[in-house]
């Protein structure tokens, strides 16, 4: 068998035989077959879709984006919006709302997660156990359950505006959300004031936003805590001992020796947590925070443009995913070992 491998184009052997023995030719045949099968499948799907859309009288395409949306959005970030605005503007509001909750969520979850990760490593048994209990309790319950829970807590169990909690001057926490002072000019703050049933003035956070942020931060922090812990454990123990023998204090050893090395193990999985928090913010649709998915869902229900709506959702998330991983790769290169310094 081994002494007569026929070559392609060898002429003497039949086609079947060279297909059996020449892996390059076989690869080409496989790929052509696969491409043909895929092409057929796509053609089948596209033909069916065109027929179904025609039967339902839905015109495909993105022209609908410039029509009047006609629905209100309960909260907007940076952009002004009213029912007379276009669908395109509604989607832009959704994207910004997604960004708002994701960015604030990432910052808070990283801080809380790092604290809990460090607490888990603490030599204090109580602190370590408490942090471990937090991690196991939180990460083994679906995020959606936690979101519903926080939404109920915020809307049903927080005090009414009249008895709002007032933890800091000008900051009021009630079942209508959180209000806080915002700068009106460089030297003057705009303080919220209690009117008959609610607050006016100042900045405000809706109960939906508060519940979503609370849920995302608490949930993601449990995963970040494990990442931080594993990253620090990955640094050789000798590093800490060496730092101590150089006379560094424990926090100095942590800051200048352990953390910079641990970051190398921390950054890659942390990136995927940041992506997770962005994707998970889409659960907003379940509690009524107007993020991208929930606005696109409304648009799909209103216009029947399902394919376009879902394509927009996927396009935006894929762009965020790619951008975030590109940014993190850059950071990763910066945090990686720098060799060759004299």
């Amino acid at each position: 068998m081994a002494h007569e491998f026929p070559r392609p184009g060898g002429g003497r052997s039949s086609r079947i035989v060279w297909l059996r023995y020449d892996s390059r030719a076989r690869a080409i045949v496989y790929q052509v077959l696969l491409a043909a099968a895929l092409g057929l499948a796509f053609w089948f799907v596209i033909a069916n879709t065109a027929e179904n859309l025609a039967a339902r009288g839905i015109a495909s395409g993105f022209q609908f984006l410039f029509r009047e949306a006609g629905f209100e959005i309960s909260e907007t970030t940076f952009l002004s919006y009213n029912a007379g605005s276009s669908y395109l503007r509604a989607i832009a509001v959704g994207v910004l709302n997604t960004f708002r909750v994701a960015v604030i969520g990432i910052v808070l979850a990283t801080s809380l997660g790092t604290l809990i990760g460090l607490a888990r490593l603490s030599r204090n048994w109580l602190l370590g156990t408490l942090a471990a209990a937090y991690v196991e309790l939180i990460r083994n319950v679906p995020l959606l359950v936690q979101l519903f829970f926080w939404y109920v807590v915020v809307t049903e169990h927080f005090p009414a505006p009249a008895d709002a909690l007032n933890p800091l001057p000008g900051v009021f926490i009630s079942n209508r959300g959180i209000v806080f002072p915002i700068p009106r000019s460089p030297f003057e703050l705009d303080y919220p004031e209690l009117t008959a049933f609610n607050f006016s003035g100042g900045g405000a956070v809706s109960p939906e936003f508060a519940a979503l942020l609370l849920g995302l931060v608490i949930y993601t922090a449990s995963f970040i805590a494990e990442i931080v812990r594993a990253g620090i454990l990955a640094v050789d123990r000798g590093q800490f001992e060496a730092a101590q023998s150089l006379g560094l204090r424990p926090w100095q050893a942590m800051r200048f020796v352990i953390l910079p090395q641990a970051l190398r193990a921390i950054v890659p999985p942390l990136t995927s947590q940041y992506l997770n928090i962005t994707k998970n913010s889409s659960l907003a649709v379940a509690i009524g925070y107007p993020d991208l998915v929930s606005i696109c869902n409304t648009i799909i229900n209103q216009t029947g443009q399902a394919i376009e709506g879902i394509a927009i959702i996927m396009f935006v998330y894929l762009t965020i995913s790619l951008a975030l991983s590109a940014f993190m790769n850059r950071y990763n290169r910066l945090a990686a070992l720098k060799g060759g310094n004299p």
Partner: protein
Amino acid sequence: MATMLPASPALQWLRANLFSSLPNTVATLCILYLTWTLLPSFLNWALVSAIWSAPDGRLCREAQGAGACWAFITEKHRFILFGTYPYDQHWRPALAVAMLIVLYGASALRSLWRPRLVIVWLAGLAVIAVLMWGGVFGLSYVENERWGGLILTLLLTTFGIAFAFPLSILLAVGRRSAMPLIRLMSVAYIEIIRGVPLISVLFMASVMLPLFLPGGVFIDKLLRAQTAMILFAAAYLAEVVRGGLQALPRGQDEAAQALGLTYWQRHRFVILPQALRIAIPPLVNTFIGFFKDTSLVVIIGLFDLLTTIKVSLNEPAWTGFGVEAYLFAAFVYFLFCYPMSRYSQALERRLARGAAAPMIREN
């Protein structure tokens, strides 16, 4: 330590673990103080003053939140666990749940990891299908629109993983293929699915799948959601399997090649058995994530465990007890996820045999 005065082991433990330094002592005292103030009032709410049974929410409302209203769970547990399945037939989904738990428990034992286990699973799933649908052996027929609660959550997970796993192996092997088209397609599939939220895949299945099929072909909501879950899980599992493939030393493949094995033989007998074994602990983690993710079907209106709880809360007699309801939901999910999580950690310790980097659970 050696120079210290001899102390009882308990005292030594306390000193080393709770009072080793000033900051440590402060932390210990703070935690003890918080526990002292918060724990009694929580226990009072959750247990002592709780109302365990009542026909509706009136008794609980009169208590004005002094105690938890577990009566909601007592009263609605049948609906929460079994959904709209015919009431007098609830033993069928209950038995199906018990069977699934036994099957999963048995699959966790390494001594039972034999090819025969697959046959046992197939037989078990067949029995469960008969139990749930009925229509034979004197069981009344129950259409799957009426399935709900815990069994739906478990079935979505089980069938999701069962169909996604083979697909994920193909994707993972495809991603490492020498053929550019196959590699490109595997990468594109995996990265697109992993880049978008599950909810968009679920929406896609529930609104777009009917558009893709020829007119007149109809697939029900459950099957559409199940398809979405399978497609979603496959991309995540594929990355776990790829991790296992990458961890395998190249020499294994080269040795198999030297023995004259074909591509498929090498994968079937040499590479995959070892790669999948390495990948088991992260596979269990993906499984946990997937189990939790099934709760998202509430958004497209499927009657899983979370939906039945939400629907129960909408009854006027029971509105306002969301905290109790969702704590119960959390408790049930935790009951399944926590053992799996511990199992995966224990398995990793045993299988890894001192591997370099510890595994981190991502979802």
